[in-house]
């Protein structure tokens, strides 16, 4: 594999953002209007950086008049998300519709199925007053094993209890929570089909390649304009495109559980700036020694991260696969 030179911390900075934006916009326009033969696009907007950049790119590419922003809060959403999503759409002149999916999720028993599993582990949990989240420990990368998840309940009085999740409860909580992303995908396709628009998905490169998305949930879309961009580059585009500063300055969260939770805590285990560089180093065949030197890591830690990336890519391959049809 050809390497683009010495490994350095600014390798991922786009040299010509204007050109990158122009290329994405040109391809997206062609994909929506010709490949997909649609008359516009819908984007689920959450007030997060990825959906904001996707909407901004789409507005530039296919025109704000051919775009619909769908805001889909539910009972556990941070109220700030909806306000920021609206602010973003206003900035780019995109029409919006707000669809509260809480009742749909009640119908699926999303909350009750999740809370039932939580109570089996932490019986004192009261979903009406307490908050919960699941995540991995920051030191799990050191263990040289796949991470295990911990359930944390933050009681109304401010105390917290955290326990390692056994397999059955972990699966039930994740399966119930994934109903949120899948309900959003259904709502996006409702609006897309009713307007003869395409669904524009919002996952970035890490989410796609490390499998940090829900199959047929946020992974269900017709086109994913930022799927080739590292998170560092998504931020670079956000600044270039004029995404509101409040969105750029926000910590990326999952906005899935009732307790606040960063994406780093839930899945990535690293600040995105470091993860971007590690992933780039791994993907482009840089030695662990060169990457360790640049990032100030031990070589052993870089090797463990490389192994972790390899494991994640392998074990999440099924998420990126289309249904197997060659029988």
């Amino acid at each position, binding site marked *: 594999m050809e390497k683009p030179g010495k490994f350095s911390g600014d390798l991922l900075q786009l040299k010509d953002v204007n050109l990158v934006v122009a290329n994405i916009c040109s391809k997206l326009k062609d994909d929506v209007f010709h490949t997909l033969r649609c008359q516009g696009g819908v984007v689920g907007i959450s007030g997060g950086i990825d959906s904001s950049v996707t909407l901004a790119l789409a507005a530039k590419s296919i025109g704000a008049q051919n775009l619909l922003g769908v805001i889909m809060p539910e009972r556990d959403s941070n109220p700030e998300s909806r306000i920021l999503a609206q602010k973003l759409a206003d900035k780019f002149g995109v029409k919006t519709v707000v669809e509260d999916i809480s009742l749909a999720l009640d119908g699926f028993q999303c909350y009750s199925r999740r809370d039932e599993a939580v109570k089996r582990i932490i019986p004192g949990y009261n979903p009406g007053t307490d908050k919960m989240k699941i995540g991995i420990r920051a030191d799990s990368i050191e*263990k040289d*094993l796949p991470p*295990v998840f911990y359930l944390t309940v933050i009681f109304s009085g401010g105390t917290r209890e955290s326990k390692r999740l056994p397999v059955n409860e972990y699966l039930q909580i994740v399966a119930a929570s994934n109903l949120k992303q899948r309900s959003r995908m259904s709502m996006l396709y409702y609006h897309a089909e009713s307007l003869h628009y395409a669904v524009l998905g919002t996952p970035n490169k890490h989410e796609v390649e490390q499998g940090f998305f829900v199959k047929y949930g946020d992974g269900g879309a017709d086109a994913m304009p930022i799927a080739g961009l590292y998170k560092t580059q998504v931020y670079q585009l956000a600044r270039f495109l004029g995404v509101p500063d409040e969105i750029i300055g926000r910590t990326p969260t999952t906005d899935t559980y009732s307790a606040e939770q960063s994406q780093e805590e839930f899945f990535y285990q690293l600040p995105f700036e470091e993860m971007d560089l590690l992933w780039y180093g791994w993907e482009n065949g840089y030695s662990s020694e060169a990457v360790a030197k640049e990032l100030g890591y031990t070589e052993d830690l870089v090797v463990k991260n490389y192994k972790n990336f390899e494991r994640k890519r*392998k074990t999440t391959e099924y998420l990126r696969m289309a249904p197997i049809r060659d029988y």
Partner: protein
Amino acid sequence: MKEQIRGFVYKTTFSAPEKINDDTLLFDEGIFDSMGLLNLISFLENDFSIKIADSELDATNFGSINAIASFLAMKLQTKEICAGLPAI
């Protein structure tokens, strides 16, 4: 004990016994993923009545069938010693 561990690994990974030996690196070689680890923890805790601490979850204890067997033997021995101690 090792036979039970082997049986668990073959059964949960749908692998042929000839493909996994006692030193095969279960996680490095992609035989087990995070679900495999969770299932393994449940199997050891339930079938051998032990409690595995968070600090014990590392490749030294779980990396291969041999590693798991050594770890389990140590845990069972500790349990036996503790059971023989007077309550305080």
